[in-house]
């Protein structure tokens, strides 16, 4: 009980805490929902790639905000007033820059896959590691040059305490975008994921659905970076979905359960992180993995332990302990 009082106290006395809770919940839910398709379409590597590839976009956005913003908005203001004013626009600028970098990468990857004889996953690897490297070089050079706060560690593992109101609005909009896209295109998504060729014979534009999914994925990945960081986004996409796939056999339910697992992991992970005073992003991922492990062992139909247990019960019922039942 003391722990709960402690948590309530944290939420009441720190302005960042409720914002962090809301942000991570949104990330958990939207990654969970979209992750169902990422897993079923074998797009995990693409998700990981898009997350890493946003770094140069962030750098470019940062420079653009500093240069253009200073020129346009800071006329007659002191240095401090100016940087405060620009900070209000950081989140949206970063979001735009990141999404552009992610989209550019996905176009590059698709182009390589279709026009050059490089294997699909190799093409993904080449593009995202290049983008990531450019981003890291960019970040280290601007932080040296201007003494500004663009922290590589924040980008890599998230900085949930730095969530701004603008970040929250962006996350909320992305969430609405994800949910409505999936609802509107559900039939096409289902058909193209399950049997792409059959879907195409039905007149469904499989390329259009692919690019739509890449667009949604870029948005989700970028919206998640503040919470869990570039490296861990992919875990939020695949672990809850993989867990849900162990628990049910219907796509609609996989999507809903995966969203709920993402939500639960985010809330639990954040609160545990607050209690033990550690970084929330990795803790959320650890909770995700723990839930996955529980499903691996105890899923009612597919759990490892459950299957053993059922076999044992069957053996007992047959009254012969030595019968080998497969």
């Amino acid at each position, binding site marked *: 009980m003391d722990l709960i009082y402690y948590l309530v106290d944290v939420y009441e006395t720190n302005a960042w805490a409720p914002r962090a809770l809301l942000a991570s919940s949104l990330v958990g839910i939207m990654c969970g929902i979209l992750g169902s398709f990422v897993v079923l379409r074998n797009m995990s590597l693409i998700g990981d790639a898009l997350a890493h590839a946003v770094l140069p976009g962030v750098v470019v956005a940062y420079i653009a905000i500093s240069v253009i913003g200073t020129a346009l908005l800071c006329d007659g203001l002191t240095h401090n007033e100016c940087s405060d004013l620009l900070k209000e626009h950081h989140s949206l600028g970063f979001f735009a820059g990141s999404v552009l970098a992610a989209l550019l990468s996905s176009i590059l990857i698709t182009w390589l896959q279709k026009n050059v004889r490089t294997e699909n996953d190799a093409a993904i690897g080449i593009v995202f590691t290049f983008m990531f490297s450019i981003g890291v070089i960019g970040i280290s050079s601007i932080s040296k040059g201007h003494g500004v706060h663009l922290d590589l560690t924040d980008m890599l593992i998230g900085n949930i305490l730095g969530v701004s109101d603008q970040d929250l609005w962006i996350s909320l909009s992305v969430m609405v975008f994800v949910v409505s896209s999936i609802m509107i295109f559900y039939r096409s998504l289902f058909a193209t994921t399950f049997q792409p060729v059959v879907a195409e*014979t*039905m007149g469904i534009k499989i390329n259009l659905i692919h690019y739509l999914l890449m667009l949604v994925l870029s948005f989700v990945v970028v919206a998640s970076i503040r919470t869990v960081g570039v490296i861990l986004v992919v875990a939020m996409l695949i672990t809850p979905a993989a867990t849900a796939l162990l628990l049910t*056999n219907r796509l609609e339910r996989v999507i809903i359960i995966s969203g709920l697992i993402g939500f639960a992991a985010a809330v639990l992970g954040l609160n545990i992180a607050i209690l033990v005073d550690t970084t929330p992003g990795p803790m959320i991922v650890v909770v995700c993995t723990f839930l996955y492990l529980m499903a691996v062992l105890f899923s009612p139909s597919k759990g490892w332990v459950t299957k053993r247990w059922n076999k044992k019960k069957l053996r007992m019922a047959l009254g012969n302990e030595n019968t080998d039942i497969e």
Partner: protein
Amino acid sequence: METTISIKSLSVSYEEKIVLKDVNLSIFPGRITGIVGPNGAGKSTLYKAILGLLEPNTGSISIQGRKVHDVRKKMAYVPQKDGVNWQFPTTVYDVVLMGRFPHKRIFQILSSEDHQIAVDAMHSLGIHEFRNRQIGALSGGQQQRVFIARALCQQADIILLDEPFVGVDVKTEQQIIQILKNLSDEGKTIMMIHHDLTKVRTYFDDIILLNKEIIADGPVESTFTKANISEAFNGKLTLFS
């Protein structure tokens, strides 16, 4: 007789390699047409061309007198079982209901009529009792029936099957061929890629012998001759000695 599918001087090549050469074909309604030929004969490519999945280099295909893209709803493709992800989280009912997708616009919700059509299709293939099963929990024959039920649910006039009897027991094979015969009696056009030459005479009304080009096509009795088979299979076949 009126044709359902009419193909005129169709040629397809992938990167300089000719896959189909000057194919001329007429496919008729109310008949089951078999397609046989050795591996790499272009059977799947022919399907892809008919289904509008690839652009032919030359030639034209008209279906019920119209272009492929205008009659998509009318054609149902029943794919080979091998290429399907049977672990996919979906049920018999959901897969059969896919047959209604081509009839719906993006914002249209499936109506109770759509659901009734799916239920009827499942009943006529005897899979209604399995409707809530995950598709991986079915036998090979039941899985094949799910796809045929989807074709029915699509209310397609033309059904293209790709090796439907692979991994299916003899009894189910008989049941499925009977279902297909009933459908063709109703006036539907059935095409089937098939590899078991011993069944050609009992299963098909018309036969196409394909080996990159059409070796022979027409009614089974007059077309499925030793000479034609031998030519299609490059003389390697000794099955009919």
